[in-house]
């Protein structure tokens, strides 16, 4: 029975991830693609040799973008659903829906925002080709560190809660997380490979649009998956609260 619940949550997580991926794709296409194109324009104006296109720009910005964002959504939806199975009933007195939204918010921070503040997203032409190995290692290391520290802080907070109370246990755990991340920021090497004369406004707007893609992905996932999980785990309560049977009293 419990294993069936895990499977049902996993399937719902991947579906919610796919749906959130569609929302993120819309944002990425409308908000992000113009900046990718502008950055490629800069690259071409400053490149000495011109690359042969293996995949045309029109395919990269549509089918290619969709493949990447949707697979990313499904994969993170699945991982988040599995993390949810561990978190459910263990992170405080929260309903299934609230647990899902809390988990999504933490995932946005730990998986994306914290690594992004050290190693932000870069448009084409920012970043030197021969440092890709180093930059990839550092980025994934930062993501791994951030996720592990977030999990550790959560577990530490839970341990401290009976003694300190929920409020101060949370304050202590979050402070510990921030200090540890600050140390990682300070000791990991700086990467600054913005070419000379690359427009600062373009870099800023590209990075903001990359952040918007993730915010929409995780907010969408949290709300959709939360609703599906609530209906799965709490069928009678949702039936009573459903607007079809009783007008909502929020």
């Amino acid at each position, binding site marked *: 029975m419990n294993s069936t619940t895990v499977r049902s949550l996993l399937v719902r997580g991947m579906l919610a991830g796919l749906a959130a991926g569609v929302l993120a794709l819309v944002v990425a296409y409308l908000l992000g693609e113009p900046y990718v194109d502008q950055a490629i324009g800069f690259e071409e104006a400053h490149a000495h040799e011109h690359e042969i296109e293996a*995949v045309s720009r029109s395919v990269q910005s549509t089918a290619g973008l969709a493949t990447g964002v949707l697979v990313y959504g*499904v994969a993170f939806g699945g991982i988040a659903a599995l993390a949810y199975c561990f978190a459910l009933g263990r992170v405080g007195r929260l309903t299934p829906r609230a647990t899902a939204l809390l988990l999504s918010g933490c995932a946005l921070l730990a998986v994306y925002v914290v690594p992004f503040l050290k190693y932000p997203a870069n448009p084409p032409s920012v970043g030197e080709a021969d440092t890709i190995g180093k930059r990839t290692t550092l980025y994934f290391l930062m993501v791994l560190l951030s996720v592990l520290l977030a999990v550790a802080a959560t577990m530490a907070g839970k341990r401290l809660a009976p003694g300190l109370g929920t409020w101060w246990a949370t304050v202590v755990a979050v402070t510990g997380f921030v200090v540890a991340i600050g140390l990682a920021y300070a000791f990991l090497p700086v990467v600054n490979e913005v070419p000379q004369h690359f427009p600062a406004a373009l870099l800023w707007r590209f990075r903001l649009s990359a952040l918007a893609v993730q915010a929409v992905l995780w907010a969408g996932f949290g709300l959709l998956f939360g609703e599906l999980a609530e209906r799965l785990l709490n069928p009678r309560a949702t039936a009573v609260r459903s607007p079809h049977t009783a007008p909502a009293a929020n």
Partner: protein
Amino acid sequence: MAQTVAQSTPTTPALPAKLPLKATAPWAAFFGILMLVLLYFVGAEQGATSVFSGTDVHEWVHDARHLLGFPCH
């Protein structure tokens, strides 16, 4: 569902029961790794490391890689 709390009313929302770690662990191990492999192909294949030779995978997901924050090239 045996583990959900009974007697729920709209004013006192039912709090979910814990799922035993033993029930989640095999799913997490198998599907967790599968999902990470998917993320690898979206985020890093044919960049720093390659499973397949060439640049087709890299070129196909090029824009997604930039906009999802992965180091691309």
